[in-house]
């Protein structure tokens, strides 16, 4: 089990991403990294997830936009 994101809205967006094959890596200084399901040759650039974004709704929306646009899922 990975660490939960302190913000509910962001945690929900991350869980939906995981449900579509994305990986969340935690324990980073800024909080974590969201990796797309693509292989080593073709993948989207991983997103750095902030633990304390000033506007959590925007951050959650950006996560969902990333997941929607990713062609590798």
């Amino acid at each position, binding site marked *: 089990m990975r660490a939960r994101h302190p913000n509910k809205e962001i945690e929900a967006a991350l869980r939906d991403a995981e449900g579509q094959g994305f990986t969340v890596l935690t324990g980073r200084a800024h909080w974590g990294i969201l990796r797309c399901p693509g292989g080593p040759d073709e993948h989207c*650039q991983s997103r750095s997830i902030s633990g304390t974004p000033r506007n959590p709704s*925007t951050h959650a929306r*950006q*996560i969902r*936009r990333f997941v929607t646009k990713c062609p590798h899922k």
Partner: protein
Amino acid sequence: MTDTHVFMVVFQIADAREPDEYAVRLYGDGGVEEVMLAGPDSAGVFEVEFERVDRSFPAAVLSAVRDLERVFPEATILRVEPDDLVTIAAIAERVGRSHESVRLLVRGERGPGGFPAPAGKLDAKTQAWRWAEVAQWFETYIGPVPGAEHAAFLAAVNDILDLRRLAGDAIDTPDIAQAMASLLPEQLTVAARAAV
């Protein structure tokens, strides 16, 4: 009047391999709001997605570039996306048509013909067009294209970013510098003089 503007700024820090240090600077105190950092790839290229409230799209983009330069003075800003060069697939996505429909328009087998000439090739099979020209063609012959009103501005900003990156190698004497400066549009030379 203010609106929310969504766009991406691409920059490079050649020796960056892990995002952590850069994410801390971007998200921490003195950083930038309403952004998400992506990357770096193996060449140290990052993308930052902005969702910025400002009075206009150009104002939002230009203040975003300034903010990134403040937080990452070591970075080279490469471009702002949605970028100017587009493939048939990207055109199809932006105008909301199928790949095949755009292919037929490009070849003049459907629609009024006179599609803009490609700007070049990305590889042996993939041609690319300038989005500013394609968007204008669509607006003239087919109908409104969402977001197309910014195409000319984005093309101009990206050309300036290219110019900044290449000036050091391309301009080696004051004569050349002066001759090249005389090619700049008058709005820019007047504004540059006022800024000094």
